[in-house]
């Protein structure tokens, strides 16, 4: 249930709340689901990105970076637990 809420809240927040709140929720969701920052950044850019504003879709790139970091941290923690 926690994982489901961690996935749903950032995606809903992208439609309803300011993007700063969405970023905070996505970072919090990364503790439970490492791919949520990527999904949230991708959704923000799908909804609001316009090529004339910035060269690259920033939130997708930042989300991918945070997801990679979250996956690396998670794998390290799992390795520690099993060893």
């Amino acid at each position, binding site marked *: 249930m926690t994982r489901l809420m961690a996935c749903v809240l950032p*995606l809903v927040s992208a439609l*309803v709340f300011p993007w700063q709140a969405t970023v905070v929720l996505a970072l919090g969701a990364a503790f439970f689901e490492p791919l949520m920052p990527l999904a949230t950044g991708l959704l923000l850019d799908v909804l609001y990105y316009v090529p*004339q504003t910035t060269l690259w879709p920033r939130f997708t790139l930042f989300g991918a970076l945070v997801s990679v970091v979250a996956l690396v941290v998670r794998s390290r923690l799992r390795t520690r637990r099993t060893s």
Partner: protein
Amino acid sequence: MKKTYLPRRNALLTVRELSWGARAVLLVCAVALVRFALPNVFMQIAAPFLGVSASVARASHAVINSFSSTAEQAAENERLREENVALVAENARLTKQSSQSVVETNVSTTGASRGVVAQVVARPPVGPYDTLVLDQGQSAGVSDGMEVFSSGGVPLGVVTGTTSDFSRAVLFSSPDVQTAGWAGERSVPVTITGRGGGVLVAVLPRSANIMVGDFIYVPGPGMLPIGVVARVDGDATSPAVTLRIRPLSNLFSLGSVELRTTGVGQSVEFASSTAP
């Protein structure tokens, strides 16, 4: 003998093994596919959801205001009225100036077309790029390059993308968007740069003597005010100062805007070239 049951493993990953995060990514990818393949259909589906943010904001304002005292609200109301009167007077003066300059340049105003009124579907700060999503598109006569005005006639941005029933506009405050304009009563030429979140800045020589409270103008037609200098930053030894500009219109509470063809889109530079 105890039999060990081993479930048959498929060479491809089964759906049951996907995490919730992976499913979210796949879902968003499907949404992205719809946006790029069928942009108008995507906007028709997304518009009601994007409008939820405005409803939530209005409801939260009502709740927050219910805690304010009546006296505070009355004082705020009076201050806003005075500000509005000043702006109306300024607008009238500028309109007169604009009409005079139009006559001098022999540009006919009789053929000026009326604008297209559009409702704002999505606005900052929900959207992170300082863009507006509007509910009028090509079918209503909206085209790329049209300028966006608030209900008070304040220029806000430029239309950069249209579908059949919707359009997107980039605000002057969008990050790295540069707009040519003027500052102060002496109409000092200035390049206004957006910083996101409704913030505008401009860098000028200190000798221009731009003070806090001076208006910032952009073309379209004549000189139209878009903001007021809220702060002047600069080292005492530096020959240049940075103007922090407060927009005249509250970008976070826009309800409807007007779209007009003014030709100002040519004076706005974007960070990247126009891409499909």
